[in-house]
C-alpha cells in the first residue's frame, strides 16, 4: 500500500514518555533522549503525528488535539512530552548521514493524523542523538496541553 508523503514544510510530533525525557538530577526536563527516537524491534516505522493534519489553525490547538487523539488509544502521562520537528529538517539530518527516511501518513482508527518515519535505523545511536538535539524544535508537556 502506498502512503502519502508529508510535505517538507509540515511538522511532526513524537510522543516521548517520561522515561525517555532527558532530565537533570532534580527531575527538571531539559531535552529529549536519543532513545526516544529508537523504534521497537517489531515496529516498521517510528510513530509520529502529522500536526497540520489535525485541521487546527494554530500550534497550541494542534498539539492539544494531538494529545487528545493519542489519549484515546494509550495512556499519556502528564510528564510525557510532545517533541516537535519539521519534516524537511528531520529528513535532512538523516540524509547528511546517508540515511534516506520516508515520512508517510499512516492513519489509524481514532488517530487519523498518525504517520510513520520509515527506514530509520534503530541502532544508529549517534544519528538518533542528532535527531534528538537538532531536529527537535521544541517540546511540550502533555499535562499542560491536557489541562
Amino acid at each position, binding site marked *: 500500500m502506498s502512503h502519502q508523503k508529508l510535505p517538507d514544510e509540515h511538522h511532526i510530533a513524537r510522543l516521548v514518555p517520561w522515561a525517555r525525557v532527558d532530565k537533570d538530577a532534580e527531575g527538571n526536563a531539559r531535552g529529549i533522549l536519543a532513545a526516544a527516537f529508537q523504534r521497537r524491534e517489531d515496529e516498521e516505522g517510528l510513530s509520529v503525528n502529522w500536526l497540520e493534519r489535525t485541521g487546527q489553525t494554530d500550534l497550541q490547538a494542534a498539539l492539544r488535539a494531538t494529545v487528545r487523539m493519542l489519549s484515546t488509544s494509550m495512556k499519556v502521562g502528564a510528564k510525557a512530552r510532545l517533541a516537535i520537528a519539521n519534516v524537511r529538517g528531520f529528513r535532512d539530518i538523516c540524509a547528511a548521514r546517508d540515511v534516506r527516511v520516508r515520512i508517510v501518513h499512516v492513519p489509524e482508527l481514532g488517530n487519523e493524523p498518525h504517520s510513520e518515519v520509515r527506514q530509520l535505523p534503530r541502532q544508529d545511536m549517534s544519528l538518533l542523538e542528532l535527531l534528538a538535539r*537538532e531536529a527537535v524544535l521544541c517540546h511540550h508537556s502533555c499535562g499542560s496541553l491536557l489541562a
Partner: protein
Amino acid sequence: MSSLFSNHALKRSFGASSVVQINDFRDRSTVAVSAPAKRRDASVSATDLITTPSSSRSLEELLYEARAQAKIHTAQVAMHMDDAWRRGLYAQLDNLLDRDEWFEGDLPLGHDSYATFIRLMLLVRPTQRPGLGLSAQGKLIASWQTNDARLSIECLAFDQVRYVLSHHVDGEREAAAGDTILDRILIVLTPYGPDKWFTRVASEAA
C-alpha cells in the same frame, strides 16, 4: 496545505543541517577482543526474563519490585556513597519508576542494568548525580549535560555500556556513539573531555 507554523517563531531555524559523524570503530573492535569471558548477550538477561510483565503480577507490583531491588542494591554499597547523594538517587528512582507515567509495553528497570549503573557510579564517582532515563528494554540511561554538550550512558547487563554524546566543535555539532565495557569508559571518552560532564570526587580522580 500550508504549514501551521509559518507565523510562529520556532526555537531554532533550519538551514542545511551540517553534521559530523564519528563512529568509534576502534573501540568497538577492542570490546570484541577484550570482553570478559563471562560476557553474554547483553540484550537478554535472566533479570529481563524475571521482570517481564506477566498476567500474574500487576504493573504496580513490578514497578514496586524494581524500585525495591534497586534501593536494596544501593544500600549494599552505601558505605561508598555520600548520604545526600544516595537519598537523591532514591528520589530519582521513585520519579523514574512512576506508575502514573509508565508507558505501555516498556519493561521495568532490570536489576542487571542497575548493577552496571552502580558500578559506573563507583568507578567515575561524579560529584553531580546524572539525570536518569530508561530505555523501552528496561536499561537505565544516565545523562549529563553541560552547556550544549550531552553525554548519555545506557547501562546494559554484565558491565556493558553504550555511550552516546554530542557537543559543538567549531560551530558544528559532533555526535559519537559506541559500546564498550565499564572498565574502559573513561579511556574511550578521553578524546571528548569527560571532565566537562562529571566533576569527579577529588581523591578518586587524582
